[in-house]
């Protein structure tokens, strides 16, 4: 699915209407997000399908995405990662773990003003390639790293 910038911004427009409810605890995030993320990509059990469903099959390798992850992760149930996209106009970052039962782990959309970077912790079932896809100006860019896992984290 090729989610253009226009629909992404409209997604934020809709979200803005509901934002006042956040503090009141009334907001259902899914309402704001449903138009935007392709949830079926999270149900994909193989990498090729997940990449296809997020529209990243033809992602171009980039040196402008920084991916910090341990070379060896002792605990596969909490592998810390940091991702920084230096590609101007990055609106979305996606995280995939090639060998996980469901490879797509996480996606973030960034509005203007939010830096296209984050830190998170992931579960990794086994040693695997860790893959980041950045969306900028309607194009996908990618970077990957191998992470060795000594104790797998999906059965945890």
């Amino acid at each position, binding site marked *: 699915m090729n989610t253009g910038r226009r629909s992404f911004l409209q*997604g*934020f427009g809709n*979200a*803005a209407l509901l*934002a*006042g409810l*956040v*503090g009141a*605890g009334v*907001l*259902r*995030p*899914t309402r*704001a*997000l449903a138009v*935007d*993320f392709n*949830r079926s990509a*999270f149900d994909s059990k193989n990498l090729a399908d997940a990449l296809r469903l997020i529209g990243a099959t033809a992602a171009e390798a980039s040196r402008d995405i920084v991916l910090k992850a341990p070379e060896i992760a002792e605990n596969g*149930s*909490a*592998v810390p990662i*940091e991702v920084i996209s230096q590609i101007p106009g990055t609106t979305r970052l996606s995280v995939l*773990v090639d060998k*996980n*039962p*469901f490879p*797509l*782990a*996480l*996606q*973030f*959309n*960034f*509005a203007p*003003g*939010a*830096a296209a*970077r*984050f*830190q*998170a*912790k*992931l*579960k*990794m*079932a086994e040693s695997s390639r860790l893959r980041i896809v950045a969306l900028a100006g309607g194009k996908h860019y990618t970077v990957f790293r191998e992470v060795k896992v000594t104790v797998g*984290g*999906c*059965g*945890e």
Partner: protein
Amino acid sequence: MPDPIKIRATVKGDEGEVRVLLPHPMESGQRRDAAGQLIPAHYITSVILSLNGKPVIEGALGTAVSANPLFAFQLAGVKAGDRLGVAWVDNKGQRGSAEGSFTAG
């Protein structure tokens, strides 16, 4: 009831640093209990962060995000006193939300 969401939001210059901790089991659906039965998946699917009521970061999560998700972000054009909101929903329709304020760091 789960533990409350923790928010740490600090400002350096006009750059805001945000850390949010969302207490949640994030059950992957792959784990078995003592009797060998699969524990059903129970995980946050969506999270949204807002700055002064305006959404700035939206996240979609799968089961591979660790239990009690801890995320860090950076926001530009932030000043002390600005409000940061966080809201999540999980695959069972349960929700959580919280609000904090940026402090000079």
